[in-house]
């Protein structure tokens, strides 16, 4: 049994016109010591997936169906008060680096202390020591504790947020594009840091990204989402080199290369409007291999050569 198990998860946003399915029938496991990367374009339901696991989907969205379990315990049935004590304690959240996710009028130290006060029984001295310890863990100087967020660079701020997330010793970290908006060098440093922390502390990390090579390089397992559905899942490096689903294949082909032809291959068309997802396979209007069946019936995830893929091409 995996640490985090999502089963047949459905999350919808209700608009006056339609019920928009942002996450549709997702099954996903994340195990201790494992880094799972979720890849997809904007609007593929990645962020909603993370917020759903925290039960923080903003209104008018809600979890419609399915189960979320952590360490075998069901999260969907928990009272809001009980769920709140789990947030930050067992499940930590690391937001996008580009966001202003620290309170602008509190020092970094005060914000880490707040997490510790909420979730641990440490006394004042122990708390101060723990703040210094987690800052050191993310390779920041202790004096950063007295700084305000606006006094830090983007990379330092993201490290501070990781320190804050890890301070109460969570088991699972949910990271929503943790490195987007940072420059390439800082991004690599941060990913190396995250990877090291997962290995050293025995964490489980679920990371969302739109960057396929990044996921291929740093994650153990990759999940490709399209229109709220998982279309392919497999070992991370392989998903880049040997994708099975036409969408994953097209994604991998659309990456700029240092050597080789100048023209990038584009995926024709655009991400479907989630309130009007095509009948059959949601990718069929953009798929160069689409045939009649693709326009009639949605493919199920099936196991093919170590991958799970939802595509009629690979069925039977």
């Amino acid at each position: 049994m995996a640490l985090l198990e999502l089963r047949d998860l459905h999350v919808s946003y209700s608009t006056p016109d339609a019920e928009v399915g942002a996450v549709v029938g997702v099954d996903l496991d994340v195990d201790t010591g494992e880094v799972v990367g979720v890849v997809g374009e904007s609007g593929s339901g990645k962020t909603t997936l993370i917020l759903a696991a925290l039960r923080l989907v903003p209104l008018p969205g809600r979890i419609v169906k399915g189960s979320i379990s952590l360490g075998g315990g069901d999260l969907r049935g928990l009272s809001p008060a009980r769920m709140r004590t789990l947030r930050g304690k067992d499940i930590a959240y690391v937001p996008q680096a580009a966001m202003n996710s620290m309170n602008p009028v509190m020092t970094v130290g005060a914000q880490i202390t707040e997490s510790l006060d909420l979730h641990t029984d440490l006394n004042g001295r122990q708390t101060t020591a723990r703040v210094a310890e987690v800052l050191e863990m993310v390779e920041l100087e202790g004096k950063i504790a007295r700084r305000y967020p606006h006094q830090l660079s983007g990379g330092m701020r993201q490290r501070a947020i990781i320190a804050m997330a890890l301070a109460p010793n969570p088991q699972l970290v949910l990271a929503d594009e943790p490195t987007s908006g940072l420059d390439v060098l800082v991004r690599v440093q941060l990913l190396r840091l995250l990877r090291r922390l997962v290995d050293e502390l025995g964490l489980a990390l679920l990371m969302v990204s739109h960057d396929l090579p990044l996921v291929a390089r740093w994650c153990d397992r990759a999940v490709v989402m399209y229109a709220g559905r998982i279309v392919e899942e497999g070992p991370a490096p392989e998903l880049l080199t040997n994708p099975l689903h036409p969408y994953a294949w097209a994604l991998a082909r659309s990456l700029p290369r240092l050597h080789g032809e100048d023209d990038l291959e584009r995926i024709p068309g655009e991400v479907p409007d989630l309130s009007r997802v095509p009948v059959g396979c949601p990718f069929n209007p953009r798929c160069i291999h689409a045939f009649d069946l693709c326009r009639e019936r949605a493919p199920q995830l099936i196991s093919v050569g170590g991958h799970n893929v939802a595509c009629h091409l690979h069925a039977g």
Partner: protein
Amino acid sequence: MVTGRYVAGRVAQYALVLLLALILNFIIPRVAPGDPLEGIVGESGALLPVEEQRAIITRLGLDQPLTVQFGRYARGLIQGDLGYSYNKGQPVREVIGDRLPFTLLLLGPAAVLSAVLGVMLGMRAAWRRGSATDIGLLGLVLGLDALPPFFLGTMLLVGFAVRLDLFPVVSSIPVGIGLLSLEGLGELVHRLALPFATLTLSGLGPYFLLTRSSMLGTLGEDHVLMARAKGCPAKQVVYRHGLRPALLPVATLFGLSMGFILGGSVVVETVFSYPGLGRLTYDAVLARDFPMLQGVFLVFTIAVIGANLLADLTHPLLDPRVRSAR
């Protein structure tokens, strides 16, 4: 850090503003229509023999050029002499000294309570955006805000003092009121209640609206989602992560609204016959009592500038970003 240099810079800036205000203070009553003579001896002033008219004008120094009058005014200010009231026949400083405590007693608590109440209601409305509470409060506060203070005061007076007879119609304070005894205090509260309510209710609108919109802004910010994801309880999310950063513009509003509340006091004190500076201003205007007006305006000016200075100096304490921008 709030450095001494920052404070000194601010104080110097406000001192300059004060100086400009003093000059305006001197000019405004003199360019306003009306004749001080009329105020001193009444409508019949014009009937006095010309020599007597001239004698009064000379005695008051009103025949001197404006520059000379200003020089005399400025010299007096420095010496703490605000001049002599034409109308009351008393030094202006004495009259103001008598009235100031009453105004402070009324305005201070009203200014603070309208701010606190406005902020608390605004916060509640923002947190429950779109709910019946939010819409109800919004309508109520906008309605209150649209009522001019004199009208609100008159309505309260008619309703609670005349019809229901719960409060006195005239809020003047009896001379021998024993403020140290329980009954004395009770009597004071009883007499102050209506003008206090009027000022508080009419000052609350801007705080409510500003806090509500400022807080709707902060509640939508990323750090609020982060706070919830950290497991902060709702109260902590609202106060520490929502309200605290939203308070910055409210501090500025406190400085700005001091002018409105003083303006309101002129009307409200008059409606309730309360013996404060506002009432004094009203009487002085009617009497064209220049020195009195200048004296009262001086106090008002200092109050408004002081409140703004205070707001400016607290800003860096509230917002670390302002602190390090210096």
